């Protein structure tokens, strides 16, 4: 049996995860994760594929089990409980609606499979289905089949089906992943409004930073099976803890530099930048596209490779000598092919 050093739950939060580790064959999916979720909170697990975010969600749901560590709901250790006994609502990326059942039958499923003594009466189930159809704004569609609904409608049905059993928490695995951009935006706002209305503790997984930032109360940024940073969307953007988070929460440019004598050096030349309290050695200089400026001297020499119109600004692509491409948003673009010197007006330095 797997080792679980913590038997007791230390926190009384809605969801508390302590020291969770999970390994698939040789690939460590989760390398020790601690996380506390407050009651009524809307939390996003954000990360690239392979970061462990879906594994973490499945472990919280009881669809997968940790090799080490515990999962607690309201101070109760649920680590050993299977998904059916945890009373969680789970929403899948591809909806997973039962295609041979009508919408109403889909929503009623969780109530109909209950043991006779816990099962509501037929009339009560029908009333609950009606109520949920109204909640997800699909009144009157109970008689249709999933195939007759659009993707956005199907995801709302999946949500109603999950809510029908009155789960203690709601878990959503890339809930907008299969939808096109426009529907995705609408459904996102709608889901946020629904969360505010229902107030259920919810966690959703996404690889889309825009989605996480717009929707969640707090965002958990994950990378390589670890939590890189947890924070409110604004805080993540303003105070990223690592180059990875900086990169993941917005568009970014990265240049490899060296910190020496309190100054930032690029290919042996000192840049007119303050190294602050960054320790000497190699570092990553990071800045957003709108933070790049052309300077007379003391900048990074780059060659302009292309200029495109983007919104009211110009998107300028430049080639760094001995490094990759950078993207800048500028009001007045330099001519293509010209060599300029570039210096960020705002930036971050991450030790490597």
């Amino acid at each position: 049996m797997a080792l679980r050093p913590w038997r007791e739950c230390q926190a009384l939060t809605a969801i508390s995860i302590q020291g969770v580790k999970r390994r698939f064959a040789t690939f460590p999916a989760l390398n020790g994760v601690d996380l506390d979720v407050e009651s009524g909170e809307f939390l996003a697990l954000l990360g690239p594929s392979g970061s462990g975010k879906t594994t973490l969600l499945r472990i919280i749901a009881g669809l997968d089990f940790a090799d080490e560590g515990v999962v607690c709901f309201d101070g109760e250790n649920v680590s050993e409980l299977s998904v059916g006994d945890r009373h969680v609502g789970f929403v899948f990326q591809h909806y997973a609606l039962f295609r041979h059942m009508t919408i109403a039958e889909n929503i009623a499923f969780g109530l109909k499979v209950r043991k006779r003594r816990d099962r509501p009466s037929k009339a009560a189930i029908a009333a609950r289905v009606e109520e949920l159809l109204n909640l997800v704004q699909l009144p009157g569609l109970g008689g249709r089949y999933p195939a007759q609904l659009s993707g956005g409608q199907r995801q709302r049905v999946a949500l109603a089906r999950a809510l029908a059993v009155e789960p203690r928490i709601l878990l959503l695995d890339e809930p907008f992943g299969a939808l096109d951009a426009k529907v995705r935006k609408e459904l996102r706002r709608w889901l946020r409004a629904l969360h505010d209305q229902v107030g259920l503790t919810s966690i959703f997984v996404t690889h889309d930073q825009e989605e996480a930032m717009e929707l969640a109360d707090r965002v958990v940024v994950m990378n390589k099976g670890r939590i890189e940073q947890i924070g409110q969307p604004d805080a993540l953007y303003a105070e990223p803890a690592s180059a990875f988070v900086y990169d993941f929460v917005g568009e970014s440019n990265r240049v490899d530099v060296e910190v020496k004598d309190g100054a930032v050096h690029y290919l042996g030349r000192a840049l007119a930048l303050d190294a602050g309290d960054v320790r000497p050695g190699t570092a990553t200089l990071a800045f957003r596209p709108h933070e790049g400026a052309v300077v007379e001297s003391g900048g990074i020499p780059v060659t302009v490779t292309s200029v495109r119109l983007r919104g009211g600004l110009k998107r300028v692509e430049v080639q760094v000598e001995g490094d990759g491409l950078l993207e800048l948003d500028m009001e007045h673009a330099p001519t293509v092919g010209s060599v300029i010197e570039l210096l960020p007006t705002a930036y971050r330095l991450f030790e490597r």
Partner: protein
Amino acid sequence: MSHATPLRHRTGRALLIGAALLWLAFFVLLPLLSVFAQALPAAATGLTAGFKAIGHGAPVKALGAIGSGFAHSWSPYWEAITQPDALAAIKLTLIAAGIAVPANLVFGIAVSWAITKFDFPGKGLLISLVDLPLSVSPVVAGLIYVLMFGATGWFGPWLVEHDVQIVFAVPGIVLATIFVTFPFVARELIPVMTEQGRDDETAAVALGASGWQTFWHVTLPNIRWGLLYGVLLCNARAMGEFGAVSVVSGHIRGETNTMPLHVEILYNEYNFLAAFAVASLLALLALVTLVLKGLLEWRYGHGGSARH
């Protein structure tokens, strides 16, 4: 769309379709029809006469010729298939199929479920094993059972001691039939279940459904057409199996002869009419299977496409 197809391509297409149809007509349809013609010789003559009469513009005469043809054919045909040995063969075939098909239905579902819904070591081996009966010659399949349960086989002495007869008796025939027809259900279900993934079952379990409820309310409705199709093919093969059953049967008339074996015996005795009469029953089974399969595929293609 077709009017835009260049002439050269249209000719090629017509040639290809024509060749395929001719091939099927010559190698499949003609032999099948000839079985019926041999089984009901007078009816065939009557039909020929009838068509000639229609050609000469005498429809009443034509109907008469066809009718009397069938009437003359019917009684020897009926005698051939109601003869005691024939009835015993039909009964044994029904018994073998009646056990093999339900057994393979249950285990076919179990194996497909295990392969598609779970990950476990040795899964690849299991998938190959499912196909084994199709790649092994039926004769070898029969010999395996003789080797295992025959008087000189592994379990032979023990079986003799306890007076249990497996080879050259009904149990051996049933075992051989199960072996040969095992892949049909599983091979139909595995692709269907793989395509549908595990999300539906996971969703059902997350909603509190038990394993049995999940299977009955979610999995089974999702696989029903594939399952029916698999059972149909399994049944056709179970009734028609010759090689493996021939090895383990011992050819005891009225006791261990199935329909295909009975046909062979009659044929070897130059009793062509009776042979073809029983053969026509098997051929009829093939036709019924084909029609049902067609209906299912039609249903599959239309009703079944309502997914995602």
